[in-house]
């Protein structure tokens, strides 16, 4: 598993070069944005059940056959598995966001996920839709552009508007999930 720092190291080592000023600029930004990054991760961890439940509910609303007998979310046992998977994906996205690198998400979550779903008969098109909704919800909560109350309590007094860049990064990790399932 890599993070933003070790990713730089691995690519520098491939060239056999020491890490100088240019490469360090990005890392300095990562360090400077550490508080925002932690806040953005908190936005996920404090709303896991809400994000996952909303996404699965949205997926079912758009395709009500899923919860009917014969549907993929029937009986409740399979619906529960679906909610659980939503939370697992959110967990790995939160790890990747904290580390500033997607390797943990790719190695430990996405590698083989599509094959597993195909083997288990999970419809990937519905799974992708749920991930899309999770992405939208997460970005909205992170940037405080959701309707209603502020949904997370960060360690900074700063507002969600400061999390814009990090939210874009989080969205890119959800896109990786979607790509892996497509």
């Amino acid at each position, binding site marked *: 598993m890599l993070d933003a720092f070790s990713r730089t190291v691995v690519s520098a080592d491939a060239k056999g070069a020491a890490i100088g000023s240019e490469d*360090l600029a990005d890392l300095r930004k990562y360090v400077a944005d550490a508080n925002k990054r932690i806040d953005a991760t908190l936005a996920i*961890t404090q709303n896991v059940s809400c994000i996952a439940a909303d996404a699965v509910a949205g997926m079912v609303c758009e395709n009500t056959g899923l919860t009917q007998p014969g549907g993929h979310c029937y009986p409740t046992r399979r619906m529960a598995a679906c909610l659980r998977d939503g939370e697992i994906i959110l*967990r790995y996205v939160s790890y990747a966001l904290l580390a500033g690198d997607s390797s943990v998400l790719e190695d430990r979550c996405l590698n083989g996920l599509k094959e597993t779903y195909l083997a288990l008969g999970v419809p990937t098109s519905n799974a992708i839709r749920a991930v899309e909704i999770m992405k939208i919800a997460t970005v909205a909560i992170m940037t405080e552009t959701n309707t209603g109350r502020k949904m997370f309590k960060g360690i900074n007094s700063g507002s969600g508007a400061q999390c814009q860049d990090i939210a874009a990064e989080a969205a890119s990790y959800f896109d990786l999930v979607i790509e892996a399932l497509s």
Partner: protein
Amino acid sequence: MKSAVTTVVSAADAAGRFPSMSDFESVKGSFDRAKDRLEAAEKLASCLDKFTNLAVDAVYQNGSYEQANKDKCVRDIHHYLRLINYCLVTGGTGPLDEWGISGMREIIRIQLLPTAAYIEAFIFIRDEIKINDVMSQQAETEFKGLLDYLINALA
């Protein structure tokens, strides 16, 4: 590769839980110290050749090692300093451990290399070169900590 963040994430993943408040504290703690080590890494990168040449010249000056091996010694010292540069960036000893120290004893033994020359060179860098001229006190402390770590591993 081991760093402050990956250690925390691995532990959280092994337990199947989301990163907790104490995880964030530990990550934040490592970021608070990151400024000094990134400075040390930057300055070391710009002085890598200078430090290497100064150290190797000093070691080979007294004639106790074969001059023919000097180029190889320069190459190796340069290599180790580059790994120290990486360690300063990651904030852990991962790069030195994985790419410099593991397997090193075996190689040194089989090729009958004089490790004393390496140790002398690193001690020279640690004690004789005025590192303070190029980097701040805190950055120097970070750099010397890793030099000590390497010297102990070689000894």
